[in-house]
């Protein structure tokens, strides 16, 4: 460690060598400020820890359907050997469901992992165009469920990557439909809050209890395992917002009585009050 003029400490690396010059012995000392190197080492260690945690999460969630597939394949073989076709069919259904879950997991995991390595090319784009793209992607579900979606007409223009940002809206709308209230026709509002400077997706679905709101963006965390999905959707959304150096959170209360997710993006190019 060395000390700056302002008395703050900083790490140094020193090389000392004895040399002879014109028959006279000298000691040469090179002292180098390695603050930046230490910073990168710390960052790398943090990334390594994150990757390790990510790997364990993946292995856990991929292993789970495998346990079902391997276990019930053996039970299936036994049931077939005794000609118990009714139970054999039930075993097959479990195996099939677990295999489908694994397929969804792998597909979404691949998409999630690509987010981190895709070059972050930003371009000025009207958020309404991004929303339009997202609505095209979910058109089938919207039609099937007769979901009513309202879009604010004058969302700000953002300096971002349009395709992942459309995926943000796609995943959020997908969740609003998936976690709809059983007794209400689906209503979703895509808007802009000029006071908080943030975009939002609000719905009249089942909502998320306050105590669980900080869990929803974690990878593989599903509040309701009976629902289809992998627990990657909102983690993907968060990662996209993170790559844009933005912030995302669950807003309380929701104006429509369900779940309201808000997100902030820096570098807005115009900000038209609604």
């Amino acid at each position, binding site marked *: 460690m060395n000390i700056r003029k302002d008395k703050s400490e900083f790490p140094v690396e020193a090389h000392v060598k004895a040399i002879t010059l014109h028959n006279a012995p000298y000691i040469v000392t090179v002292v180098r400020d390695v603050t930046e190197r230490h910073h990168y080492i710390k960052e790398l260690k943090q990334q390594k820890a994150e990757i390790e945690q990510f790997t*364990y999460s993946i*292995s*856990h*969630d991929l*292993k*789970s359907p*495998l*346990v*079902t597939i*391997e*276990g*019930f394949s*053996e*039970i299936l073989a036994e049931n077939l050997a005794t000609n118990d076709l009714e139970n054999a069919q039930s075993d097959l259904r*479990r195996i099939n*469901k*677990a295999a489908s879950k694994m397929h969804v997991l792998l597909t979404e995991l691949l998409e999630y992992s690509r987010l981190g390595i895709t070059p972050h090319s930003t371009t000025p784009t009207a958020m309404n165009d991004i929303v339009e793209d997202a609505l095209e992607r979910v058109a089938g579900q919207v039609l099937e469920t007769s979901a009513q979606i309202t879009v604010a007409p004058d969302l700000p223009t953002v300096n971002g990557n349009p395709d992942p940002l459309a995926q943000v809206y796609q995943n959020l709308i997908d969740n609003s439909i998936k976690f709809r209230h059983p007794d209400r026709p689906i209503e979703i509002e895509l808007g802009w809050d000029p006071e908080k400077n943030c975009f939002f997706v609000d719905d009249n679905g089942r909502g998320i*209890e306050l105590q*669980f709101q900080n*869990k929803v963006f974690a990878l*593989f965390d*599903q*509040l*309701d*395992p009976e629902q289809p999905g992998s627990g990657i959707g909102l983690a993907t959304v968060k990662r996209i917002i993170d790559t844009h150096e933005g912030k995302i959170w669950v807003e309380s209360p929701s104006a429509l009585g369900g779940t309201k997710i808000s997100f902030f993006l820096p570098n807005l190019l115009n900000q038209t009050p609604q």
Partner: protein
Amino acid sequence: MNKTISTLSDKTPLILLIEDDPDHAELMRRSLSKADLEVELLHLSDGNKALDYLVNASKLSQLPSLILLDLTLPKVDGWQVLVRLKKSACAAVPLVILTSSANPDDITKATQLHANSYIAKPARLQGYIDLAQALCDYWLGWNKFTITPRPPL
């Protein structure tokens, strides 16, 4: 006053399985049955339900003989269940973490939080059957194997 934990001497022992995957719960149920182990298996699919059940069971002095706890549970996860149980009247009930993850950090954390054991879920049915037998042997005191003490040197 300490509550008396119901033991297996007077009735069929109860194993509480806290597990959100119904297929894994079914594998455990079938494994206990295949191993001819006379135990009752109660399966609860989330942490909240399990905590509510155990509070009531504790009041009635009808605690399970063994708790098998998965870590990835919806809403209240296995870690929170573990912490709360080990601070409750159920602290003396043996609690075994049974999960798909073999993360060394999780194993250390489980030990620090006073879990009695940590077992990674087996991949095959026979593994489950062996596990069911081993759990009953050790935690329910059904060990059929006796160790002959070495003669003194």
